[in-house]
């Protein structure tokens, strides 16, 4: 038996013994997931047990080094763990911006003190992070951001406004892009700061989405004192870190729940609402064709995700190819929800009601529209692919 086979057998046994049955089905909404944080309320004892058991092994962040709370697994071992979790339908024990975005950036750019302070807390779900990039005047043109950090000796005094900050009202800390070198060129004057949301001068105001939910906020900084020890990398190096982090964010936006179609599998929804004809096939031939074309692209997408990850050099991330994944994956997810809505017919329009039909389809559909905006819009991804992957010239 190869080492990997032995690892698989061991992992399978451990998961069987330790994953509570209630955690062996996909999280359907964002609220079903365990996000961690100082104020997080577990939905159930099982949710808490599952997260803690996995965190103890470092398996909330399987590939991070053990000294930072990770599992220290190789890429191949991590893939086995994922397969074995999928085999029993186990959901992710913990999801967070710390895992998807900040962690990888800290591993690459953070100093030892920062890694030891922040990574284990992310791994154990103790601190929940949010992302302070976008501003009212800086969206796609992110580098034009104006939130400023004035030099106060051993600290910066941060003043300005962020917007669309997902879960800012529930997060404990924010990683923010702040202009600390006002005289430097646009891309070279930005620093990457770690700020506690409880510090004086930080406040948030929720914004309601078209889905009726309010997962994001305006975030205000009013003379917030941020120690210089909380600068990741060097002052002025924030843009490189921000971009590196974005490639992780982009790959993650589209790889969450790979292939499981949580929140609506078009063919299942269609068979339920439209039904099958005498030949046993979905009774609406045009809808069937549309769903089949979607499934072909979905198979192609998940296969590409697997391939790009396999081809990426360990630790180097996937680079500009993250933009291809982000573009294809987010457009695909929008298409999936459009199909679920269409397959549901007027049932899909329901906004309130019994559990299964309380607007889930409609709210998920509406939420999915953001996929091609958040983390850089579809148009921005196409720009990046054109220039960085295909080498087409700037205007």
């Amino acid at each position: 038996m190869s080492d990997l086979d032995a690892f698989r057998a061991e992992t399978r046994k451990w998961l069987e013994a330790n994953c509570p049955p209630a955690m062996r089905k996909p999280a359907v909404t964002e609220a079903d997931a365990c996000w961690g944080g100082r104020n997080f309320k577990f939905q159930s004892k099982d949710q808490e047990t599952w997260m803690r058991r996995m965190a103890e092994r470092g398996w909330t962040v399987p590939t991070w080094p053990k000294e930072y709370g990770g599992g220290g697994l190789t890429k191949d071992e991590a893939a086995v763990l994922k397969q074995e979790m999928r085999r029993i339908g186990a959901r992710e024990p913990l999801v967070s911006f710390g895992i998807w975005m900040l962690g990888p950036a800290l591993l690459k750019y953070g100093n030892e003190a920062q890694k030891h302070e922040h990574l284990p807390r992310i791994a154990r779900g103790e601190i929940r992070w949010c992302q302070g990039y976008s501003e009212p005047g800086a969206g796609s043109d992110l580098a034009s951001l104006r939130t400023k950090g004035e030099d106060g000796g051993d600290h910066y005094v941060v003043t300005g406004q962020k917007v669309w900050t997902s879960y800012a009202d529930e997060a404990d800390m924010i990683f923010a892009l702040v202009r600390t070198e006002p005289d430097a060129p646009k891309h070279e004057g930005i620093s990457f700061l770690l700020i506690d949301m409880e510090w004086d001068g930080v406040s948030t105001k929720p914004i309601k989405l078209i889905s009726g939910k309010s997962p994001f906020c305006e975030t205000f900084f009013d003379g917030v004192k941020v120690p210089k020890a909380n600068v990741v990398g060097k002052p002025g190096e924030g843009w490189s870190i921000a971009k590196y982090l974005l490639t992780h964010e982009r790959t993650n936006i589209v790889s969450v729940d790979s292939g499981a179609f949580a929140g609506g599998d078009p063919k299942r929804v269609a068979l339920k609402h439209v039904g099958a004809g005498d030949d046993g096939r979905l009774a609406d031939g045009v809808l069937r064709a549309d769903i089949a074309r979607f499934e072909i692209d979905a198979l192609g997408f998940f296969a590409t995700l697997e391939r790009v990850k396999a081809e990426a050099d360990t630790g180097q991330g996937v680079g500009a190819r993250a933009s291809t994944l982000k573009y294809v994956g987010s457009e695909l997810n929008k298409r999936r929800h459009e199909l679920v809505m269409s397959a549901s017919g007027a049932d899909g329009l329901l906004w309130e009601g019994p559990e299964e039909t309380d607007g889930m389809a409609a709210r998920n559909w509406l939420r999915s529209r953001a996929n091609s905006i958040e983390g850089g819009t579809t148009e921005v991804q196409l720009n990046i692919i054109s220039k960085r992957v295909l080498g087409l010239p700037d205007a």
Partner: protein
Amino acid sequence: MSFKLSEEQAMLRDAAREFLAEKSPVSELRRLRDEKNPDGFSRQLWSGMAEMGWLGVLVPEEHGGIGFGAVGAGLISEAMGRSLVASPFLSSAVLAAVAIREGGTDAHKAEHLPKIASGERIYALAADERPRHDPAAIDASAVRDGNGFRLSGVKRHIPEGHAADAFVVSAMLDGEVALFLVEAKAEGASTDARALVDSRYAADLTLNDVKLDGGALMSSGEAAQKALDAALETGRACLSAELLGAGETAFDATLDYLKQRQQFGRVIGTFQGLQHRAAHLHSELELTRSLAFKALAALDAGTPDAPMWCAAAKAKATAAGRLSASEAIQMFGGVGMTDEFDIGFFYKRAQAAGEFLGDDRFHADRLAKINGY
């Protein structure tokens, strides 16, 4: 499953690319067309491919092949797609080879597989009878006659079928599917070659009460269906790889042109309207590459999801191959429409390779069926 090629596979890929780029660039297809070559392919190239061992890529070593499996055949197909190599590779080395390997008796395998591998004879699979791919629609039928059979029917659109020395024919026997090995020269058998839009030939095979001895029956019933399916799936995956190779090559040419052609005082590749279309096409080709590889690897692994991957791959490769060539024509502008320029050959081949063994619509429907809706 890994997307990584083994060392042997990588060597095969490199050798195929190098050999075919040198021996059979697109100008070769043009030459064959312009001189109205009756074969539509070069016999010399065919011998060269045999010498490289490629015609035996799907033939087990015990029968004189190299047994590189579907991934190997796909790598050769992809390289063939890159310069639009015309040859009976698909019909003989893929479709007929797999049909005989999976559906033939030991005697058939011993007699015919070595000849496929050596290129000594050309074989073809005669499955379709309709203009649109529909291998389940079989009107051809065989009746028992003493120890043998009499076979009648019309098999259509057999790629390079005019050059085949023998055919694997699907026909009904006692109400079930059966596969027969039929010599092209058998009395009552005739082929009718037609030049196609892609400057290659396909033939219709008319079987008029062809008398066969008992040994011509390869298999029948479930065994025949399985062998036929295996051949068709392998052919579909290989055509997907070919379409990928052709699609990527057309795209590379388009990208070069976008970086060089000037209008309005700048290169046209600076226009965002074109950049985004190029980026979209790139993404479609990425999906195609992943799916083609998944399909080929699933065939080699023999996993039950292989038909699903083959359907997805052929559907995507057909659509993306067509898109790549049609976007090429559009972005080249007027020159893209000229015969003098190669891109038209890619557009035409994409249509033909897309149609053979089922286009994107055929396979979308099949995928739905496989997935239970």
